[in-house]
């Protein structure tokens, strides 16, 4: 017989939840509420003069050429990060899945980057690609590439995409590997007896069967690229050169903290919040049904 432990104390559940709730309130709800509030006001640079302007901040932001450029840049950046990190993770996972016996070491190595803090990872890449001391830079220069990502916006973007993707490969790898291993071996064997070579098996059997994983990761990676890459960008390029690597999240920071335009910055964060909500809603809605077979 099991003995059931019964807590008569009605307070205990709340006490146990309290730290989590407190953290959420202090670090999410309060700032979020503040952002929503600020986004409805125009404030002078010294914070003395407050003026309630309804949605004027949003209007200004959404019609600003600069902002719209940043939107496109962010989409490009997120697309590239998602593609690079998922693509390389999938390739690595397929390789690990084939040689699953020696895979423990391999797996551990691939999972490591995930444990590295974004800023530290960025510093790592900073040194690898540093125009004067980075060994990768030296290699590129030796190959005849005119390498200076402190000046060349395209190169800067490539570095930021690379650094941001690298961090996410581990996470994607683990999910892809789990997804691959959940495909019954006999299904693949049946396909090979049916006449499909390995490439064909991948595209007609493996890839479709991975689609729930892929879709889940797609959303996670887009969210990551949109919101979690601030540290990487900040440590590597600070959004520069010019605005070449300034994404939406970075613009919130530079407009708000550096240019002290709190109204516009708040409106931008509210827009970003809405994007997260939308992405999460899509994920919940579709992960449950659409992509299932």
């Amino acid at each position, binding site marked *: 017989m099991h003995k059931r432990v019964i807590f008569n104390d009605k307070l205990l559940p709340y006490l146990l939840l309290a730290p989590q709730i407190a953290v959420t309130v202090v670090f999410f709800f309060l700032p979020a509420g503040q952002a929503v509030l600020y986004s409805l006001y125009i404030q002078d640079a010294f914070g003395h003069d407050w003026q309630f302007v309804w949605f004027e901040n949003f209007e200004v932001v959404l019609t600003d050429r600069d902002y719209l450029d940043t939107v496109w840049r962010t989409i490009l950046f997120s697309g590239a990060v998602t593609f690079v990190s998922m693509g390389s993770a999938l390739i690595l996972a397929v390789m690990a899945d084939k040689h699953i016996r020696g895979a423990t070491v391999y797996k551990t190595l691939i999972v490591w980057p995930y444990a590295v803090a974004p800023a530290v990872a960025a510093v790592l890449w900073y040194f690898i690609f540093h125009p004067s001391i980075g060994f990768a830079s030296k290699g590129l220069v030796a190959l005849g590439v005119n390498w200076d990502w402190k000046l060349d916006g395209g190169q800067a973007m490539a570095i930021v995409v690379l650094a941001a993707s690298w961090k996410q490969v581990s996470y994607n790898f683990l999910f892809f590997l789990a997804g691959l291993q959940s495909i019954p071996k006999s299904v693949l*064997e*049946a396909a090979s*007896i049916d006449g499909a070579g390995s490439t064909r098996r991948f595209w007609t059997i493996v890839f479709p*069967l991975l689609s729930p994983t892929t879709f889940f990761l797609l959303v996670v990676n887009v969210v990551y690229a949109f919101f979690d890459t601030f540290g990487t960008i900040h440590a590597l390029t600070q959004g520069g050169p010019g605005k070449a690597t300034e994404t939406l999240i970075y613009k919130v920071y530079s407009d708000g903290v550096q240019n002290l335009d709190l109204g516009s910055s708040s409106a931008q964060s509210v827009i970003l919040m809405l994007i997260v909500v939308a992405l999460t809603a899509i994920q919940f809605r579709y992960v449950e049904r659409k992509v299932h077979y």
Partner: protein
Amino acid sequence: MAQVELRAIKKSFGDVAVIHGVDCPIADGEFVVILGPSGCGKSTLLRIVAGLETQSSGDVVIGGKVVNTVEPKDRNIAMVFQNYALYPHMSVRENMAYGLKVRGLPKPEIEAAVARAAKILELEKLLDRRPRQLSGGQRQRVAMGRAIVRNPEVFLFDEPLSNLDAKLRVQMRIELKQLHSQLKTTSIYVTHDQVEAMTLADRLIVMNGGRAEHIGAPLDVYARPATTFVAGFIGAPAMNLVPGTLVAGGVAIDGTKLGVAHPAKTVTGADVTVGFRPETLHLDPAGPVALLVTLVGALGADTLVHGRMGGPQGPTITARLPGVVKVREGERMVLRVAPEDIHLFDRATGRRID
């Protein structure tokens, strides 16, 4: 359709030898069943024929060609897996069409082939369903459909019925038999179920511990099992196997003497294992076998009597007597067994002695 031949097939996984040299020619259109207990290497042998495993040595010959290095996809075989291995993201139609599509057949031909297979297996109404929307029996049919639609030279079956409930298994067994007489495709069928094996097989390969212990027609295997393992494995209830010694004109078991039809070539005094099937024992007050009854199982049509032969310390045997036999535990009964129903095996090697 094609002949298949296994020549001295051996297989090791690392240091572990799993198959120790199997030889067997299989005729065109023959239905061969590989029967053996779990873990004896049946699936491994079948997968070697399919090309999913590579043998450590020996040759697989299909249609006169050695196919050792030929990919599974180029062996022109079809396989039905124990768990069916249907493509979960494809409809029944797509599952069946996949192999044809991969081989680049024109669409109308694919449709015709799928329709034909669906008709044979009565799958027409299920063509647009996904595997998860099907019952076990239906999935099994789809797996069959996927195999026959390709019109391969050889069918390979790995325990295809073992996931079905008993009733469905009997039904599918009959259908399989009919299907084979219709298509006449060379088939290799793996099972651990001896009834399935006996009913389906043109020829049986009885495997034990990675060796083919007996290859022969089912009734021959039953009538003259090559080893004690085969003798004990085929037939239910199992053949009685008791230790004995050859004496002049027969065999002695703990003081009981039984006559033997073919006086063995081996010398008198040799240690043997004596085998006789439960159904070959008959009530006979003048018989040589005294049985101390320990357990009675009345099945209605038959009565299974378990007991000790000769006395309380004698070897345990089972008799299967027709009808209802009134006997109780602790009682004694006297039985006879005909000399031609006695099988003798070398006790050291387990091989049959004739």
